[in-house]
């Protein structure tokens, strides 16, 4: 029982750290900007110009 409790607590802690770690890395430290255009298909040559 104690072993199960320790296991569950450890698992919850790992999940929590993982979740908060991911969120803080993506939301608190970065600003997400985007480039959109035709990256594939017949117009892809222009998408490449934008992506560069």
């Amino acid at each position, binding site marked *: 029982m104690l072993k199960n409790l320790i296991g569950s607590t450890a698992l919850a802690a790992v999940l929590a750290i993982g979740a908060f770690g991911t969120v803080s890395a993506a939301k608190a430290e970065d600003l997400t900007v985007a480039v959109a*255009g035709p990256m594939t*298909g*017949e117009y892809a040559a222009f998408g490449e*110009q934008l992506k560069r």
Partner: protein
Amino acid sequence: MAVKDINAKGGVLGKQLKLEIGDDQCDPKQAVQVANDFVKKGVVFVAGHFCSGSSIPASDIYAEEGILQITPASTNTKFTDDPAAKGIKTIFRTCGRDDLQGVFDGTWLAKTYAGKNVAILDDKSAYGQGLAVDTQKNFEAAGGTVALRDTYTSKEKDFSALVSKLKDAKIDAVFIGGYHFDVGLIMRQAREQGLSADFVSGDAMNSAELWSISGPAGEGLRFSDASSALNLDSAKDVVAAFRADNYEPEGYTLSTYAAIQAWAAAAEKAGDIEGAKVADALRSGPIQTVTGELSWDAKGDLTKSTYAWYVWHEGKYAQEPLN
């Protein structure tokens, strides 16, 4: 490269930029999907899209979400005119507009081919049709008479019927509002069928891929585009960095770089990433970019656009001197 350079200098408002790439294939429905995907990912700024037919439907979503959008390439007038009429202020360009390019193209055509037979064609796309309509308007206003006005379906493989029409009408010059892959093929088939008319088009001819489609039939193709920024002092370091990476920053590369630079500078000026605040900062004064000092009017259009002619010769295109 713009994102990398901004991050190397400390990012924006002390935060590093993370870049998302969206592929719309110039398809309006896919553009809307890309826009919705960006919203889910928390994107705060979009440099894009390329085709006017994609930029316009995607802009509805960005505007609704308050995401600032700057297109480096979409020239259709509706892109900024329609949102401005609704009071939307978060939509901008770092390229020109079809109506201004139409003045440049149309008046030149009227002067150069006075008394000759001029045809105007378009591919029915938002970009191609927009440019052809504005060019025709200005061609006629300058005294020209269109000998043949027609459209074609983009991505067709056989343009022989269209070429026959041009031959029958004894056309001396053809202006085409459309994309390079169609124009290259039309020119190839025109030369094969013995049509010697001059071909003139717009900025979508600024891809090296044109020649791979047209082959030597593309010789002499003339197109209008914004005056090149490649030789500006403001672009010197960035152009050198691209070339050191074995990439020639042709076409819309520098206008995309400028779009990202402008957003970053305006966000710093506003002290905020909220679209409306960044938009106000963009309109509040000139911003230095690789393509020079840029300013925007109330609609989000550049206050100054300078056009030039470029001519294809032996597989490469070069800008003619400005008048």
